[in-house]
């Protein structure tokens, strides 16, 4: 009998998965063996739920990611709509046969990396929130969304869209909705909604650039470049560089995004045009980032992040409120009259957003 023999039955009910995960990598096989077996058990999901419930009842912290690593779980909805579905890959497990699962897993990792390394943010909530994603949602489902707790990805119908995990910026986009929810919590309607969408596009694009090591000049500034089906006439779903030019297709129609306030679209549809007017703050970010050069997450991205998380941005903020705060943040972060402050101010001027 080993000294650690008594651990095994305990793992099933009370040991949090991140502890199990660490144990599973322990050099001592007496520790790692039982932990590994527990991690692969089918009951792991149920165990985690029980653990989470018990912890929250006890007013202790819920399951959290370790200090510098993500805690990812990928689920498979099996083309149904039940969430989260069946667990198919837990943190630290090797890639399997399903490329969609593997892309979701690495996309979550890339998102976690950018927020941690560029902004010292520990996961979506800044407090080690586990990252969950469900793939293969519904049949031929042409969408991906954030449901307030996790990401959900459809496979696309193959005619208009293909697998929504194909673009890393789409994965980053969905997770950034989580960051926004935990920070400025911008209302998902009208201008605050378009700002919410723009935050997701901005950080989605930065996650892609960070993972590819691209400068602002090298980046394509496209959102969803990998998810359009081959027959669709277009390059992506949105272009931050040239809003309104991403696609022009007989089935899909034409990219409706404006680049400046002159073409602002007033509509009640799409939650008041959140995916349409986001083109304006998207383009402002592109202009500021390319004017400053280098890696976009280091300067423009940091300024935008400061505003999103700084506590001054109202949930009902309009473009002009947001613009004013970015100029202020650029001053505070990089000094008065510096390149950063001027580039940000000029970017908003170019898209026609007045700074009050």
């Amino acid at each position, binding site marked *: 009998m080993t000294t650690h023999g008594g651990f095994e039955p305990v793992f099933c009910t009370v040991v949090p998965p991140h502890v199990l995960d660490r144990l599973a990598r322990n050099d001592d096989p007496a520790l790692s063996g039982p932990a590994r077996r527990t991690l692969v058990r089918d009951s792991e999901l149920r165990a985690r739920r029980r653990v989470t419930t018990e912890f929250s009842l006890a007013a202790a912290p819920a399951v959290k990611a370790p200090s510098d690593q993500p805690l990812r779980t990928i689920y498979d909805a099996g083309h149904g709509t039940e969430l989260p579905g069946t667990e198919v890959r837990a943190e630290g497990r090797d890639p399997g046969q399903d490329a969609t699962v593997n892309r979701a897993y690495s996309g979550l990792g890339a998102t976690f990396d950018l927020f941690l390394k560029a902004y010292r943010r520990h996961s979506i909530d800044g407090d080690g929130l586990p990252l969950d994603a469900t793939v293969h949602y519904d049949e031929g489902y042409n969408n991906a969304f954030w449901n307030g707790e996790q990401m*959900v990805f459809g496979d696309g119908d193959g005619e208009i869209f293909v697998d929504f995990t194909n673009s890393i910026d789409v994965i980053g986009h969905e997770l950034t909705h989580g960051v926004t929810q935990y920070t400025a919590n911008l209302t998902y309607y009208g201008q605050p909604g378009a700002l919410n969408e723009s935050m997701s596009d901005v950080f989605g694009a930065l996650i892609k650039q960070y993972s590819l090591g691209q400068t602002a000049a090298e980046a394509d500034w496209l959102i969803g470049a990998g998810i359009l089906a081959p027959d669709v006439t277009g390059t992506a779903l949105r272009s931050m560089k040239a809003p309104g030019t991403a696609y022009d297709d007989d089935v899909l129609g034409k990219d409706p995004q404006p680049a400046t306030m002159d073409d602002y679209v007033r509509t009640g549809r799409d939650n008041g045009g959140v995916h349409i007017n986001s083109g304006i703050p998207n383009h402002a970010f592109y202009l500021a980032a390319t004017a400053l050069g280098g890696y976009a997450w280091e300067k423009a991205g940091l300024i935008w992040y400061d505003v999103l998380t700084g506590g001054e941005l109202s949930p009902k903020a309009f473009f002009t409120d947001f613009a004013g705060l970015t100029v202020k943040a650029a001053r505070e972060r990089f000094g008065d009259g510096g390149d950063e402050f001027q580039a940000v101010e000029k970017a908003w001027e170019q898209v026609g957003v007045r700074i009050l």
Partner: protein
Amino acid sequence: MRIQVRRTGGFAGIERHAEVDTSGRADAPEWHALAERVLSAGRGAPPAGVPDGFSYEITVDGRAVYAADPRLTEDQRRLVSRVLKEGA
């Protein structure tokens, strides 16, 4: 019976609209039963959706009900996907 579905929002923000007129269709009774269940369980105002989630407006002979992903009932999901697939 005229059944219309308008789907808005979604990651792409692209709107889709389709309509089925059940008159003369062999499967009309099935459509009517499904549509009536959706109407009676439906909401008269758009519910709060989730970021990038689809929103649906389902109109049956001029009467509209609303729904949003991911919280659709089985009947709503079936009706919406049938109309968008088979409708014009």
